[in-house]
């Protein structure tokens, strides 16, 4: 579970909402330049895990280190600086409705004052091309795009500022298998080209194997298995096998929500 030089290091990460413990002592390392896929059922805490690392949710306990910096103890300026090195693709794209596509893509560049508005527009066109979209798409509003195109624009926005760390929240949810494979391919290309460190959460097994170098399974707020993503479908772990093969019988039982 321990890597030599992890970019992201989690120790004892816990988070509860009321009586429900969503994360229960998570230990996880993600080595520099590798992709970690976190799998798990709905409500297993995957999204909360990513939001804790991003600083969108404050964990109750534990340590989050990015490049050796304890994020939770870092001063606000340092946290903002760390955040500027992170890109995120949200499950539903989370594109800003009131802005055009190119303004969405260039939002982070303009927010960080990395370039002028006209330069940002040019760079947005370049990034859109990287995800297979024509520059003319830049003038459309997000509502005019299909689900697959919205995911591509979300990916373009996430990589526009060349982040060192990328997060992907259910990148293929709601897409047909072919579009899912296209998005996965774009993610792998982007991550490899930029040499970024990535964490993706998904319950799409084909996507997990395509995107990840390593994988971990989250169940009831705990990491129950970690290994190579290529070994996911033949892990030897009963829980992982049940989950990856979609079997009803096994150690994971559906619980009625109280």
């Amino acid at each position, binding site marked *: 579970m321990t890597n030599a030089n992890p970019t992201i290091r989690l120790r004892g990460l816990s988070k509860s909402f009321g009586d429900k413990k969503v994360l229960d002592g998570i230990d996880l390392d993600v080595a520099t330049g590798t992709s970690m896929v976190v799998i798990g059922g709905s409500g297993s805490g995957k999204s909360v895990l990513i*939001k804790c690392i*991003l*600083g*969108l949710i404050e964990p109750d306990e534990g340590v989050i280190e990015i490049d050796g910096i304890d994020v939770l103890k870092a001063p606000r300026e340092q946290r*903002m600086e760390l*955040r*500027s090195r*992170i*890109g*995120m693709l*949200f*499950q*539903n794209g*989370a*594109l*800003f*409705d*009131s802005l055009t596509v190119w303004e969405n893509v260039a*939002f*982070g560049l303009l*927010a*960080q004052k990395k370039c002028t508005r006209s330069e940002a527009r040019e760079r947005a066109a370049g990034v859109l091309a990287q995800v297979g979209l024509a520059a003319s798409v830049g003038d459309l509003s997000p509502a005019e795009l299909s689900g697959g195109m919205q995911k591509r624009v979300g990916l373009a*926005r996430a990589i526009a500022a060349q982040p060192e760390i990328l997060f992907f929240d259910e990148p293929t949810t709601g897409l047909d298998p072919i579009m899912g494979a296209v998005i996965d391919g774009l993610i792998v290309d982007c991550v490899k080209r930029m040499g970024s460190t990535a964490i993706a959460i998904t319950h799409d097994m084909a996507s997990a194997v395509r995107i990840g170098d390593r994988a971990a399974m989250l169940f009831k707020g705990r990491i129950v298995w970690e290994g190579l993503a290529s070994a996911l479908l033949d892990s030897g772990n009963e829980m992982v096998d049940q989950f990856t093969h979609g079997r009803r019988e096994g150690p994971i039982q559906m619980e009625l929500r109280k």
Partner: protein
Amino acid sequence: MTAALDFVAWLGRFVLAACTACGRLALFCVSGLSHIVRPPFYGRMFLRAIIDIGYTSLPVVALTATFTGMVLALQSSTGLSRFSADSAVASLVVLSVTRELGPVIASLMVAGRVGASIAAEIGTMRVTDQIDALSTLSTNPMKYLVAPRLLAGLIALPLLVLIADILGVMGGFIIATVKLNFNTQTYLRNTLDFIQTDDVVSGLVKAAVFGVLITLMGCYQGYNSKGGAQGVGQATTSAVVAASVLILAFDYVLTEMFFAR
């Protein structure tokens, strides 16, 4: 005995919840207002907000103010004629419109129109992760979404109320001279003789406070909405109801401050 203890426990929980809600709203307000004066500033968002709040509300505010002035002239003439005090119609219209009806009616109309729209827009951004996306793109959502709207409300409402005052007085003037056969020059002289700078200024100060209240409630309810479309709907309703009640409550407080002797 158990029932009494249950009641005390319920009362305690209710008071704690009310205090928590007030505290959260106060902190949200302070945070939003403080971002108005701290860079970076989002000029485009401010311009968009001032157009949404001010320019697009102009027709509805103009219509309601004009009709309010017309009704006021008609009703006051009917009432005052019983005491042979018809000459007081002009002063009653101008004082009522500038001190009370202009600010309150314009603000209530804007609360229904703009408060709901702000809550719906920010609420939708919340439930579709757009607010989280802002944070990941090095942008403070309070600074980007809330501060420009608060500033726009603070500036746009007094301008709207100034127009509402003029149109309300004009509505009264039209009814008084056309329908009630008042002498035009006498009516105008009575209007100008009775109005004082304080009357107009107090109405504009009220409008500025109401503008902040409307945008604050829209932003607060939207920002804290949960649970998809239903949550956004609830946030929208809460924003309009809370803003309307606060407008009337603050109207009393401000009137007491300005005019109580």
